[in-house]
């Protein structure tokens, strides 16, 4: 095919290229926004000394939470021996790789000295929770890169062009159980300590409690697999490239529903225990969530539609078996974890405690993201969507017929438990 012929193909683009083109436009706008931020500094955002962490940190926390499917499904497949979920773990790994790269893009935009990001590797304050989180994130991203290698190596276009590299990359699959073990360790650490990062701050009473680490990892355990199952179902409906085995996704959706019940239980006690005693700052924060400016997010985004309703829809087979209801429920779970991260990050900053000697009282401030924050944030999300769409199209990352082939690759994977029959 000559170049003009090749270009002619784009004269009447199909739906995929329209979708990809739209995403590319959003990414281009975000790139302009990113350049403005790097050029002018963070003054172009609405962040300030009272609210130094805003929309980008929310997207960063949400992307990491929504990537949690990778470590959970890899652990289920390679450590618990639930091998029939291997194709879903494959999708989750790719989603995880995208999610962690989104998080790192957010951080690159958010930190004041983006080109000193490597200081995190060189200068260590081992006492800092953020040191532990950033070490885990960097190590786990490396693990995800290794876990993704066999996926790329399986693609025909890659195999035919670089056969030796593809052979080397697919051999990484032998170490899948080891990688799953390392991934489980690293993720158990940082998924919870992202909450602890807030939880250790004594100056912020609404955050200062051990519950945040538990709630962060539990909400991620529900929303991460939800993201993976939702993305697989959507791909299966939108393109013939994706081959979906619905019994696997149905089973996972049920598990997600029960994780949500566990999350709601801990969430209830977290909120309820705060109502017993007045603690300056803490109760004002709780009021902001239950009846103040974050109350809509809290009751509808987080609790009712973010956890309660989807838990019911995912647990009861009569609802779960209807594909669009299941997808709606999974989307609600994803939205619920984003709302939880947004509310948690903001509530501790919008309520300020005075340090005047006469009386410790709460004061309030406000934060609305600036346009450039929305544009850059949208671009980072669009990058994630585009990367996933390209993965579906060119890397077959949603392909549930892959099991037989992959099993040949991993003869040493332990079989600790028999595969359970469907319910």
């Amino acid at each position, binding site marked *: 095919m000559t170049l003009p012929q090749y270009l002619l193909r784009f004269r009447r683009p199909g739906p995929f290229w329209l979708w990809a083109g739209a995403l590319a436009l959003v990414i281009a706008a975000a790139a302009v926004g990113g350049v403005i931020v790097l050029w002018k500094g*963070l003054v172009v955002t609405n962040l300030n000394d009272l609210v130094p962490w805003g929309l980008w940190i929310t997207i960063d926390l949400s992307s990491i939470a929504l990537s949690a499917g990778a470590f959970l499904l890899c652990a289920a497949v390679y450590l618990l021996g639930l091998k029939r979920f291997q194709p879903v773990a494959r999708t989750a790994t790719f989603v995880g790789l995208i999610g962690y790269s989104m998080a790192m893009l957010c951080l690159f935009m958010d930190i004041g000295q983006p080109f*000193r990001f490597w200081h995190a590797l060189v200068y260590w*304050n081992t006492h800092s929770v953020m040191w532990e989180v950033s070490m885990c994130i960097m190590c786990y991203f490396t693990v995800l890169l290794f876990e993704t290698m066999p996926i790329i190596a399986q693609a025909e276009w890659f195999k035919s062009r670089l056969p030796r590299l593809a052979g080397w990359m697919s051999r990484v699959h032998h170490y899948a159980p080891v990688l799953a073990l390392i991934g489980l360790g690293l993720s158990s650490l940082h998924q919870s300590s992202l909450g602890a990062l807030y939880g*250790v701050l004594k100056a912020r009473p609404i955050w200062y409690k051990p519950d945040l680490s538990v709630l962060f990892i539990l909400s991620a355990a529900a929303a991460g697999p939800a993201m993976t199952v939702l993305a697989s179902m959507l791909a299966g409906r939108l393109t013939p490239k994706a081959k979906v085995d619905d019994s696997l996704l149905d089973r996972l959706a049920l598990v997600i529903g029960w994780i949500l019940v566990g999350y709601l239980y801990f969430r209830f006690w977290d909120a309820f225990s705060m109502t017993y005693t007045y603690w300056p700052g803490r109760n004002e924060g709780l009021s902001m969530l239950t009846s103040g400016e974050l109350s809509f997010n809290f009751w509808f985004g987080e609790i009712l539609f973010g956890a309660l309703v989807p838990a019911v829809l995912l647990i009861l087979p009569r609802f779960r078996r209807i594909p669009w209801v299941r997808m709606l429920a999974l989307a609600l779970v994803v939205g619920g974890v984003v709302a939880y991260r947004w509310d948690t990050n903001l509530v501790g900053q919008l309520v300020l405690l005075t340090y005047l000697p006469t009386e410790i009282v709460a004061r309030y401030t406000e934060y609305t993201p600036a346009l450039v924050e929305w544009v850059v944030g949208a671009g980072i999300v669009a990058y994630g969507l585009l990367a996933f769409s390209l993965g579906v199209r060119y890397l077959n990352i949603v392909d549930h017929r892959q099991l037989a082939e992959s099993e040949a690759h991993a003869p040493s994977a332990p079989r600790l438990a028999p595969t359970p029959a469907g319910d």
Partner: protein
Amino acid sequence: MAKNPRLTRRAFLKAAAAAGVASAAGLQYARLARASQPVGSSEHRWAMVIDQAKCTGCGYCTQACRAHNDVPPTIAWNRVIAAGQVDGQPVFLPRPCMHCEHAPCVEVCMVGASYYRADGIVMMDYDKCIGCRYCEVACPYGARAFNWEDFTGPNPAVPQWGQPEIARRPRGVPEKCSFCVHRIDRGLALGLTPGVDPEATPACVVACPAKARVFGDLNDPESEVSRLLAQNPHYRLREDLGTGPRVYYLPARQEAQS
């Protein structure tokens, strides 16, 4: 394709051992690279005493600080806050960095850009900082201000309030009061006594027309700060947090107003 399981285990143990050695080396490196010095190993223990009965809220301290430390007009290392009334008279609370004994900012900083000097001063390494602002979120006193934009052009506080003595901070790092550490160190090198000789004393203390601020060494029982704290009731901000501030306040009391 069946692999010898013993070989796999040996390889795994080898890798685990290598990882262990690497992390041990890393931790050792972290210890060497850590900026904080053992607190108390210095012969000095600097502290500031602020007498609220004397403070008139004039704000000279803020301006002198801006000039000597080249602080942009949008930032104040040293804020003077209106703190209610006693006997119908307004009371003010000047607020520098507290230089906490257990500073939340030092504890949370992932790269160790915030650190303790041996004499207790909480310092910022502006070249190490990546600008994540965790310290700003952690500080209970709002003592830190982030450089959201470049500070270019003339400093409006110069020359009326003094001349800059330290380099401007770049955009993208938070900055805060340092107890004018450069004046202390240079003064000590010249054989002067910080808190007594103006050249060796923080600019805000020197500039205060009401003599409401006193600086000195708590290790020296003869110093003005030691004497004031021994003779007067005093308090520190948010002592309930256990941060152990090195800034002490003498409260404005009703009997002092007569």
